[in-house]
């Protein structure tokens, strides 16, 4: 087995460490979440908040949205050549915040529909889309910062 047992001098050690730092830049371009995924998930979450407009017969739509989100997650995982490590506490916090925001906006949609203000549902739908996009982008940024922090 090939081994390298010669302890490097300080200059060589610095060079090796610099190589490690430089290599991580090559990962950054592969670790960003694809735009198609961001757009698709944002649209699905916005569509979910619009579901109250369908009245009582909304189960098929909710099921399709849920299924589509799962398919997208699987596709993303299969296509990613650099799979990031866990997002950690910050990432989990973002997910919880997104879930809370979506549920809140969904309840607003239900209220608007119940009050006969169907056209105003566009507001929570747009808000849900904006929040989802912002959270996904923030999560992406956190993951890339974590990649840079590895030593």
């Amino acid at each position: 087995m090939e081994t390298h047992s010669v302890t490097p001098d300080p200059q060589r050690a610095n060079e090796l460490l610099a190589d490690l730092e430089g290599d991580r830049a090559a990962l950054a371009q592969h670790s960003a979440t694809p735009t198609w995924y961001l757009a698709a998930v944002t649209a699905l979450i916005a569509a979910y908040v619009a579901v109250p407009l369908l009245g009582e017969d909304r189960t098929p739509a909710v099921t399709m949205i849920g299924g589509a989100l799962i398919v997208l997650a699987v596709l993303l995982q299969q296509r990613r050549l650099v799979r990031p490590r866990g997002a950690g506490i910050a990432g989990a916090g973002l997910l919880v915040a997104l879930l809370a925001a979506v549920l809140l906006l969904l309840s607003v949609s239900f209220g608007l529909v119940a009050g006969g203000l169907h056209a105003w549902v566009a507001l929570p739908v747009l808000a849900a889309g904006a929040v989802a996009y912002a959270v996904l982008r923030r999560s992406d940024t956190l993951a890339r910062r974590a990649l840079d922090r590895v030593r």
Partner: protein
Amino acid sequence: MSADAPGVAPDEVAPRFDEVIHAPVRLRVCGLLAAADQVEFSVVRDALGVSDATLSKHLKVLADAGFVEVRKAASTSRTDARRLTFLRLTAEGRRAFSAHVAELRAIAAGLGG
């Protein structure tokens, strides 16, 4: 050095020179894998600027030492039957790499060697 092994605080990695990891290509392979959960073979190859055969040789050394896992996966973007090869540092590999980098830092600072 940020230790990636569970239960080890970032500042508690004991510097330890590792002869297997120290080879320049293998050190850089470990450096790339330490930054992510899994990295595809072609990304590592292109980042290091080495051939498939060279990288495979070094991966075998790392795998034999228990530092790297190699996993094949189906590809949704390829039209042929070839699969993607994902590489991952094992927990032991992460500890060994962290310790080795800590040793390099100590040497660079004039404290080790």
